[in-house]
Every structure is written in C-alpha cells, then in structure tokens.
C-alpha cells in the first residue's frame, strides 16, 4: 500500500512536471518560430526581392547579378512560406519530440532508480541480517556485499567489527583459560602444601622424639605418627577428588521416583549442616532414570554450597520436584546472599569458586553438571539474587514403575 501510494505520488509529480515543461517550452518554441516566419521578415525579403528586379531594370549591365540575388531571395521567401504553411505540424512535431525525450529521460531515471533499488534491497537485507547476527554475538561474519557505496562500506565495517570481536573473544578466552589454570595450580599447590607441611612437622617432631629420653616419649611418638597419617590421609582425599573429577564413572540408571528419593535424602541428610534446615517443598511423583548415588552426590554438593552460602545465619534449603512435559525438574533453593556476579558466567567451570584457599577446589558444581549431562539432563543456575539462589536440575522423565 505504501509503495502504491509512492508510485501514484511520483507519477502525479512527473505528469505535472511534464505538463509544465510542455506548456513552457510550447510557448517558447511558438515565439521562436514566430520570429523565423514573422510577416515583417517576409515583407522585408519580398521588398528586397522587388528591389533586385528594379535594379536589374535600371542597370541592365548587371542584370545577371540582380537576377541571381532575386532568385535567392525568392527561394528563401518561398521556403519560409512553406514553413509558415507547415507551422502547426512543425510545432506539433517539435513538441512531440521534446515530450518523448522528456518522457524517455524520466523513464530512464525511473528505471535506473528502480534497478538500483532492486539491487539495493537484497544487499540491505544481507546487511540487516549481518547486524542481527552481530547483535547476537556471532563473530567472523562475511556479509558478502561488495561495492564501494554506503552499503558496501557499512558491510565492510560490520565484517571488521566482527573480526575485532572474534579476536577479542579469543584473547579473553585465552586469558580466562590461563587465569583458570593459574588459579587451579595455586589451589592444588596450596591444598597439597598444607598436609605436606603438617606431615613434615610431625616427622621432625618424631625425629626429635627418637633421640630424646623424656618420659611419655612413646605416647608423643604415637601422636606424631597419627598426625603424619592424618596429613597423608588428607593428601589421599585430595588425590581421590582429582581422580573422581578426571574419571567420573558412567551412571547406572534405574527407574526412580525422584520425589521419594528426595524424601529419603532429607530424612538422611537433613541434619548434616548445622544451623541449616533442609526441607522438602512441592513433591509429586516424578519418575526418572537416574543413578541414585550420583544424584545424591549432586544434592550433597548443592546443599553443601548452600550451607556455606548461608553460613553464620539461620538458613533453609528447600527441595522442590515437578514434571514439565517430558522432563523432571528438581529445584534446590536457599535463602543465601546469591551467587557472586564475578563467577556467575563460569560457575560450572572447574576451579571456579569464590572460596578462599584451603576451602575447596571449586570442582563440586563442575562434577555435578557433568553427572547430570551424563544423565541426559542438565544443571543450571535458575535464579540468583540477594534473597537467595535456586539451582535447577533437569532429568529425562520415564514412565512410572508398575508394581
């Protein structure tokens, strides 16, 4: 409709311009032609012609000259007379030619504009799509619009921008990766150094005790030996944690009512975190194929994180379960202060943690996510605010077990 209106307006403007052009040039050409065959001009020519004849009569010696001039003037007058007779046709032809040229010019311009528009539209569409892709974060775009006009230059700018974005993103990822590894190395070193230092101190004490003869020496030696054993045990646990992350076993799936499993979990682990109440919220029957132990491990990880988050104040952890379409959803919500925005984007990456050194390796959420991905489900941060955090576990639903 808009295009039709435009066409009508353009056609009206062109028609008006043509009418004006025709009117003006018609008057101008009429006037110009009128000068050419003006009666006064013809009268003067005829008078000159008559003069030549008279001169020839008065001066017979130059008869031929005057006769020739007479004939020339006569011919000119005759030709102008013929033109005067054809005046209307001549003017009509003249106006027609000009009008045709005008119409052809307008048509040529309109065609050029139409062709340009037709060529421009797909190029603009490509630029629009490229901008959309850029807005969505896609990088290394090839707009595929050539030309050195404005559209071409915009396309080139989009391509350059996307290349710069890609470079920056790669650089950022590399830096983040490097930073993660540095953090991981620092944490691992610290985790190992603590028990090693403890063990070394105990061994030094043991060495002193071997050389000493003080009473109670044997008991002190036994204590030192136990200390060494405890530190070695810490190292063992540390190694086990690495091992479990590196070689997570495949889940042994069984048909489980997740709501019932959560009930058992609350009953068993409800009091595991002092000062934190673990309770079961909405819970209808929701059957899924899960590895009980692994799901329990995930829940422990999440509750452990929540308990740490609400540390120092009365806290609650609520477990809700439901089924949406073909997925079973478990929500683990706490009333903690929310996830630190600094780590939110890489929350499920290994070693991503806000805890201080010696308070954990930051592998819990990474292991939990891996477990749920292995189940065909997922673990996501559903909500995080100063009023609390909610993690959402999704698991593929299965038909309920028939008794």
């Amino acid at each position, binding site marked *: 409709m808009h295009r039709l209106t435009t066409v009508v307006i353009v056609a009206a403007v062109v028609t008006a311009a043509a009418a004006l052009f025709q009117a003006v040039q018609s008057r101008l050409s009429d006037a110009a032609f009128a000068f050419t065959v003006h009666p006064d001009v013809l009268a003067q020519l005829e008078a000159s*012609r008559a003069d030549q*004849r008279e001169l020839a009569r008065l001066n017979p010696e130059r008869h031929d000259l005057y*006769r020739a001039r*007479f*004939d020339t003037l*006569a*011919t000119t*007058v*005759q*030709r102008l*007379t*013929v*033109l005067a*007779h*054809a005046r209307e*046709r*001549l003017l*009509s*032809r*003249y106006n027609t*030619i000009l009008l045709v040229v005008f119409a052809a010019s307008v048509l040529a311009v309109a065609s050029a504009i139409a062709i340009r528009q037709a060529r421009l539209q797909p190029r603009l569409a490509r630029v629009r799509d490229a901008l959309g892709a850029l807005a969505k974060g896609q990088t290394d775009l090839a707009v595929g619009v050539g030309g050195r006009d404005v559209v071409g230059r915009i396309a080139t700018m989009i391509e350059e921008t996307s290349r710069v974005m890609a470079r920056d993103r790669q650089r950022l990822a590399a830096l983040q990766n490097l930073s993660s590894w540095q953090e991981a190395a620092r944490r691992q070193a610290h985790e190992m150094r603590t028990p090693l230092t403890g063990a070394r101190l105990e061994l030094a004490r043991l060495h002193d005790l071997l050389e000493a003869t003080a009473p109670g020496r044997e008991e002190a030696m036994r204590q030192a030996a136990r200390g060494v054993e405890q530190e070695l045990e810490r190292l063992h646990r540390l190694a086990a944690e690495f091992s479990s992350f590196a070689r997570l076993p495949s889940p042994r799936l069984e048909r489980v009512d997740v709501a019932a499993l959560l009930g058992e979990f609350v009953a068993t682990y409800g009091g595991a975190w002092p000062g934190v109440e673990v309770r079961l919220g909405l819970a209808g029957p929701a059957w899924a194929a899960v590895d009980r132990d692994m799901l329990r491990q995930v829940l422990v990880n999440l509750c452990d994180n929540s308990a740490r988050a609400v540390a120092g104040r009365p806290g609650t952890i609520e477990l809700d379960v439901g089924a949406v379409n073909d997925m079973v959803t478990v929500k683990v919500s706490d009333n903690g202060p929310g996830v630190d925005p600094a780590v939110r984007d890489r929350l499920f990456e290994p070693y991503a943690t806000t805890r201080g050194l010696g308070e954990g390796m930051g592998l819990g959420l990474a292991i939990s996510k891996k477990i749920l991905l292995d189940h065909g489900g997922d673990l996501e941060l559903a909500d995080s605010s100063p009023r609390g955090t909610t993690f959402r576990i999704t698991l593929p639903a299965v038909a309920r077990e028939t008794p």
Partner: protein
Amino acid sequence: MKGVVLIALTLASVCSAARAVPPPKVAIDAEQRLVVGRLAAILDEEAVARQLESGLTTTFVFRVEVAGRVLGGARVDVRYDLWDEVFEVVVVGADGRGERVTLAGRTALATWWSGVEFVVAEQRPRSTPWPRELVLAVEVVPFSVSEQDDAQRWFVRSFGESAARTDRQVTDPAERRGDSLEKVLGVLMATSIQGSALYSARWVVTVAGGR
C-alpha cells in the same frame, strides 16, 4: 442511429460548402467524357487568392466520386513567375494530356480560369452510363511536392549549420555524435513539413447531358 447522424452531418457540411461557393459545372462532352468547367468561384476564395502570387505552385486537385468510389480526377498547377510577373498554368486532365498556358497577370488568369474546361473522367463503356448526380471534390494545395522537398532539405541543412559554420576539424567523438543527433532531429522535424489543403470543397452536382 449513428449512421443517420453521420449522413445528416455529411449532408449539412456539403450543403454549407455548396452555399459558400457556387458549384462548378460537370458535363458530358461529345466523346462521352466528364468535363469540369465554370470554376471562377474557387479562384476568388480568399485563402486561394492570397496564395496565388506567392511564387509557389498552387495545385488544384479535382476528383469526381460516386458513392465514395473515385471515377476520375484532374490537376491544375498555377505558379506565378515573380520575375516575369506572369502565371504559368499547367492543366493535367484525366485523359493524360497536359496543357501549358502562360497568362500575363491576375486578370488574364481570372478570364482564362472562368472559361477553362478539362476532362476529369475518361469515357465509360456504353453499358455503364454516367450517373445523373455525382460528387465533385476540390482541394487546393499551397505548394508542390518538389517545393516541399526543397524546403525540407533546406530545413535539414539549417539544422546542421551550427557544425558546418566553422571550418575546424571535428575530432571529438561526442561532438560528432552531436552532429549526427542534429541530423536525425532535422530529418524528424523536416518530415513534418507537408502541404495541407488551403481550401477544400465538395459539391453534389447534376451532370449536364447525363441520363
């Protein structure tokens, strides 16, 4: 209904023309040919009278028709020689014979014109005699074809004069294209220089000596 209106309009126009100028005489001569005479009134028409001494050839074209079918025609060319101040008249009848007459002045032309008779249609077979009534049409053209051609050529030449005025060598292709364009435009314009009738009339006349 449309046909009736058309016929009425045609008759009205014929009658008005007839009222303006007395019709010439159309008669059958001894050789059973159609002959036209008594043409004086045509020469007295203002547009015709004004044109006669222009130096151009004024052509009178006569045509006889019956029910839209042309039976024959004739042509009279009148050209005033401006130097000698005489009229040179050529009559070409339907019999193909041309008569050339030189007349010294307007009076002589008028006298000759009022008495001239010429054949407009050749003899017919006895089985198809001349109708009692027919249409005589006349058209007066202000210049001849050769004069028209001459004016056209002159016009085309004048279009190209802007280029011809200078003797310089034209080397610029754009300028050459401009010359060609002028020629094309000149021809386009010149072809519109054509003679249209100065005067025309049609009469329904009774054939003298016919059935």
